[in-house]
């Protein structure tokens, strides 16, 4: 347990500039999880922010050293729980790469459709939560309306709403529900008609624009140096979409644009995510009518053993690049497994972009970084 007196100074000890050190969190409605920020203020201007992590550190990397290659996938669902299908896909791709397992085409198509639906659900929740941080309560309910449609589809097919372990090494766990295509098409129709609602309510709102334009500017060199990936880096002009650069599954067969903005401020990060939702709809539309018939899982042995060596696989989650690095000694459990989480590098840029601004701007910057804390602490 850390020493409380180190963090909170007595007011009689205010520095020469009148500095004040305050705590934000770990229990705070706007930190989206348990993040403890120690903020050094001068009036309302921020001088330094220091994140303290570890309040949800569940020692996942140590635990995975005693789980088999089929078992460790369920744990990754719970790390970045808003893109749980995509995390599972990253782990399954690693095992398939290591053991040279063939995945049937039908499974690949369905995996990509589920990944894109998960991306839309994650961005919807981000939109609702970020608007709520800035004081607007209505977009939260509108965003959850669409999200509930997606979790309904997931529940019919995968059996669970949030942490579904549906993607396994070799393909899928069981076949699709018969109503899947009908429900996805109904969702696409509803989403397209509601996108104009989000435009009117949030994007064109003058208060939202003045709170996010010019706030938290991140340049392209800094984004690369700090290791940022995902929408945070794409809003600064860095092209880093794993689906375009190192395509996996059927992403090389579909047409979609990589959304890049150059402004680098919070409004650009917001626009990137909203446009990404539209691109995901475009991908789903191209795939939903052409799912090939066939098996939903390839042939695998009962006991999976990766050969001796090292393997790395990467996927594009809703937050950035998620990487899985496995060092295997030839047994049924990994010798060392490391999860390269996108939030870890995205968080390190918070001090850089928020220092010098005001406390109100910190909410806009942190909201648009889209942090999920269990992903950072693992």
């Amino acid at each position: 347990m850390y020493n409380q007196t180190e963090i909170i100074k007595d007011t009689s000890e205010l520095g020469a500039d009148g500095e004040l050190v305050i705590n934000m969190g770990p229990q705070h409605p706007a930190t989206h999880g348990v993040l403890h920020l120690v903020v050094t203020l001068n009036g309302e201007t921020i001088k330094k922010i220091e994140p303290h992590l570890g309040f949800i550190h569940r020692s996942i990397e140590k635990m995975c050293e005693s789980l088999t290659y089929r078992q460790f996938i369920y744990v990754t669902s719970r790390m970045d729980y808003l893109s749980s299908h995509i995390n599972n896909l990253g782990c399954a791709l690693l095992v398939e790469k290591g053991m040279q397992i063939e995945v049937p085409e039908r499974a690949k198509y369905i995996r990509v459709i589920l990944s894109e639906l998960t991306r839309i659900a994650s961005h919807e929740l981000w939109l609702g939560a970020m608007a709520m941080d800035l004081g607007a309560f209505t977009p939260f309910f509108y965003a959850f309306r669409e999200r509930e449609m997606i979790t309904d589809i997931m529940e019919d097919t995968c059996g669970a709403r949030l942490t579904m372990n549906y993607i396994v090494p070799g393909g899928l766990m069981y076949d699709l529900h018969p109503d899947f295509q009908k429900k996805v098409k109904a969702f696409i129709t509803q989403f397209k008609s509601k996108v104009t609602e989000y435009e009117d309510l949030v994007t064109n709102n003058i208060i939202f624009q003045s709170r996010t334009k010019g706030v938290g500017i991140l340049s392209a060199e800094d984004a690369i140096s700090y290791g940022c990936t995902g929408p945070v880096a794409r809003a600064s002009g860095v092209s880093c979409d794993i689906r375009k650069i190192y395509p996996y599954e059927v992403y090389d067969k579909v047409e979609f644009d990589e959304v890049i903005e150059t402004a680098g401020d919070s409004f650009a990060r917001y626009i990137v995510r909203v446009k990404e939702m539209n691109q995901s709809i475009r991908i789903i539309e191209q795939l939903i009518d052409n799912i090939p018939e066939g098996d939903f899982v390839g042939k695998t042995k009962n006991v999976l053993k990766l050969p001796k060596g090292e393997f790395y696989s990467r996927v594009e989650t809703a937050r950035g690049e998620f990487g899985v690095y496995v060092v295997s000694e030839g047994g049924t459990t990994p010798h060392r497994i490391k999860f390269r989480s996108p939030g870890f590098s995205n968080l390190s840029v918070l001090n850089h972009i928020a220092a010098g601004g005001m406390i109100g701007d910190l909410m806009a910057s942190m909201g648009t970084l889209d942090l999920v804390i269990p992903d950072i602490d693992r």
Partner: protein
Amino acid sequence: MELKEKIAGNEPFPGIVHETPGGGIVVSTFDSVINWARSNSLWPLSFATSCCGIEMMSTASAKYDFSRFGFEVARASPRQADVIIIAGTIVNKMAPVLKRLYDQMADPKYVIAMGACAISGGPFFYNTYSVVKGADHIIPVDVYIPGCPPRPEALLHSLISLQEKIKLGMTREQIRGEFKV
């Protein structure tokens, strides 16, 4: 059993109404009236550490609304909250913070442990060095909800069970006062 049925069976107000000319007189006990009022207006503390927090947010939104049961206002400060819904894993570093939040809440206060992680450590039970194996090692828990994560309907069921528990019985302080030895 008949007491529980009476409570669950839509009794509008605990008490007997005697009709008199010019109005009515209600005869009841203070305890039952106060318990009835308390159970219908519990304010939760927004405390979500990990995945179960998203299901709690889903319960708060429009499809599985929990404000119909009186849980409308989710306060951010523990001084203004009545019930703490522990949604997510508690780790060794977070345990003193949880204890401090619980101590800051005013009596009467209730605790709901949501999800497998808060009941017993959940999927992180074996081979972890930093997870507290159950939130009831730290604070006393009233209602346990199994699931990983539990459905929003399960959370609503647990809120209704907590309301029944309040209407039926006494708070911890009343019990301590009653059975002082």
